[in-house]
């Protein structure tokens, strides 16, 4: 797949903007439509095949694992819950870039880089989601808990049938917001040589040192994808707030 072994074009080898031949820049047009149109299909492919895949799978992992973390912190005995909580804090408060590099090298040859990216994004955002779920669980009224005790429900049944359905309702917009910020974080994948859209853009631009078109297109695609989604999430948020 996209796993590139052996000599890797190190990710820190982006072109040095201070080494440009200014005379050459002056003679070339600022914007080249033909170059832009030629770059577009390849970038869109990378966008669909990598950027969206990472975002969707990462969000799925984050949604499920975040709930697991939130419940574990709640049900585990104190010292274990404390460990899980601080592990989550640790992952949340450290840079995803360093985490990507770490997991990439620690499992070099075992997991391919796209999978590394999906896992790291999923786990990183799961620690954010766990906070959202925590707030959601806390917002379930005390009476609900007491009712399950009164009905002598088992713990598993209490969580599955009573608490989680109520806790999850208000967390959907936050999940959407984190999916959007994960989406905008996907260019970080260039540090582990995953060919997502911005990395591909850089590769297209590198031979001729023409970056204007590719990065403007990349920015527009990000805007075009994230802004409508953000509006949608916003509306959902307002509707849920109204329903409460």
């Amino acid at each position, binding site marked *: 797949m996209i796993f590139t072994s052996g000599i890797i074009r190190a990710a820190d080898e982006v072109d040095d903007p201070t080494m440009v031949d200014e005379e050459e820049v002056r003679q070339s047009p600022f914007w080249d439509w033909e170059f832009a149109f030629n770059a577009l299909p390849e970038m869109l492919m990378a966008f669909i095949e990598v950027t969206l895949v990472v975002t969707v799978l990462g969000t799925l992992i984050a949604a499920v694992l975040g709930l697991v973390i939130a419940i574990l912190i709640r049900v585990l005995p104190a010292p274990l819950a404390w460990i899980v909580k601080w592990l989550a804090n640790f992952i949340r408060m450290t840079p995803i870039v360093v985490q990507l*590099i770490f997991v990439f090298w620690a499992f070099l040859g075992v997991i391919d880089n796209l999978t590394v990216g999906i896992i790291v994004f999923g786990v990183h955002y799961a620690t954010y989601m766990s906070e959202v779920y925590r*707030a959601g669980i806390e917002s379930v009224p005390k009476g609900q808990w007491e009712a399950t005790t009164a009905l002598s429900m088992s713990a598993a049944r209490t969580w599955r049938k009573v608490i989680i359905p109520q806790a999850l309702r208000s967390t959907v917009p936050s999940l959407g917001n984190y999916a959007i910020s994960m989406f905008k974080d996907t260019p970080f994948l*260039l540090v582990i040589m995953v060919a997502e859209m*911005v990395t591909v853009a850089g590769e297209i631009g590198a031979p001729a040192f023409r970056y204007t078109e590719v990065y403007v297109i990349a920015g527009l695609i990000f805007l075009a994808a994230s802004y409508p989604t953000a509006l949608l999430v916003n509306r959902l948020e307002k509707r849920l707030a109204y329903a409460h």
Partner: protein
Amino acid sequence: MDFFEDWPGYFEVVVNWSDRLLEGLWTTIQLTIYGGALAFVIAVALGLMAGSPSLWLRAPARILIEFFRGISLVVLLFLLMYVLPQLWMRNPDLPLRDLVYNTFLLGVLALGINYGAYGAEAVRASLTTVPSGQWEATTALSMSWVHKMRRVIFPQAWALMLPSLTNLWVHLLKGSAIAYIIPHVSDFTAALNQLRRPTDIWFSHAFIGLVIYFLLALILTLFMQALEARAKHKLGRGPSLREVLSPAPKAAPPDAAGPDPKTLTGPGGGPKQPASGAGAHPGGFA
């Protein structure tokens, strides 16, 4: 343990390389502080504009906020690195030429603009959360705009926006790790990538790198929580910073500790607290 066999040697490498690592760490701290300061200025300016009743101020602010939030940090960084300097290359007479060749400055700009746009939302949201009676009172007293912002509205909004700004600043610190790909900027992550070669990835990135980034984030958070305690005290809503920090036992736990989940002990759960954030402040102004 086999795994830690080489670690004594690794620590020697760290001692030998300490100046390189500290230099990288200093670059990261500078990126975080300058980027954060720029982000704050942008956030307040755009936030005030976005919260203003005039469409002429609101519309451009909204466009800028959505634009700089919507394009990813990395794309913004690359646009600043490769597209912005062309302006100077094509117009050799423009002043401040050296600035665009300073890649460190471009990194600070990218971080500041991106997170500043996020912060603008927090500023705007906290301005609208200040009770309308306060706004009306300033009008009744015919205060000038500057006077009412400085003395009445902003101090209250400030206490509301601080938790969001704290989160954003930690985000900025974490985002600054991408600066290692910028030519001529060697931040802490760049130093870690070098440290990986004589040591191994578990030592360099997990044991040294992530732990130090975590400590930096904790320090930032503590600093901001102190600011929040101070802001609340000034509004008469909490103990002073001195009282919070004093080792003497307190009658009531200070709420300066932020959204610490101490309240969730039993399955009954604590009081209903929204997820934090500026827009989620429960109380009015007494």
